[in-house]
């Protein structure tokens, strides 16, 4: 699974570069997220701007990542596309994750960081 990551202040923004987060990619996704979690102690935002579809296996992987954060950190999701949001709402898992309607980058960040975040999350 292709993923990029970018540190913005104390935020780690991880961006899967795939159109589907599903049964075929769930295991690789979990493994890569685990290494990010081990390497980064602060907030982790998963930018789902490129992900058009999330299936139940992908959803299970998001829950597994949330658990790996150890209960003190919530998994934060940004740029959820309509079909992804639909699955999260249908299963009521939208109450489990922190879902950002907008860019979660803190105000006052360097303009370059903002631009990189928007570029990563803006395409469809």
């Amino acid at each position, binding site marked *: 699974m292709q993923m990029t990551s970018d540190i913005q202040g104390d935020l780690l923004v991880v961006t899967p570069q795939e*159109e*589907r987060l*599903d*049964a*075929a*990619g769930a295991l690789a996704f979990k493994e890569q997220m685990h290494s990010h979690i081990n390497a980064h102690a602060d907030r982790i935002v998963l930018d789902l701007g490129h992900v*058009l*579809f999330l*299936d*139940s*296996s992908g*959803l*299970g*992987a998001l*829950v*597994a990542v*949330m*658990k790996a954060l150890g*209960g003190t950190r919530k998994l934060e999701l940004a740029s959820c596309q*309509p*079909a992804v949001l*639909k*699955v999260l709402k*249908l*299963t*009521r898992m939208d109450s*489990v994750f922190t879902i950002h309607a907008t860019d979660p980058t803190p105000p006052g960040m360097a303009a370059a960081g903002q631009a990189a975040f928007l570029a990563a999350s803006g395409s469809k």
Partner: protein
Amino acid sequence: MKPERNDDGAEIHHGRFASTDAAVQQELSRISALSAAGDLAEDRRDDMLIVLGEVLNNIVEHAFEGSDAGWIDCRISRCANRLCIMTRDEGRPLPPSLLTKGSLPDFGDSVDDLPEGGFGWFIIHSLVDDMLYERTGGQNLMSFTLALEREGG
């Protein structure tokens, strides 16, 4: 109303692919691209792709688990004001529990209790209008339909 298993409707797509996660992913991407070019309402197209993903995953997981990959056949057609989808495979019979109305798994009391699975059939039953499973001639046949326009918008 049960979905009819016939070929009277206008076929939108017919594919046969290996019963593996990777082949299913590829097929779903193909159907997604194909249906994006059509005139289906976007939210119904999403619903169809979400349901189809769950159905195909279940076939791979339950009908072919621990055995050699076989094939899955998938037909999507438009009949009257509905999308009619039929899958066929030669895997093992699917567990009958899959057909009962799915409910959401228990969320438990803490993050550690959160379910990592058991969402699939709930998602399917939430989005389809009907679902028929038949086991015949050593094959699993699943048919389901979705209205082209959701009632009440």
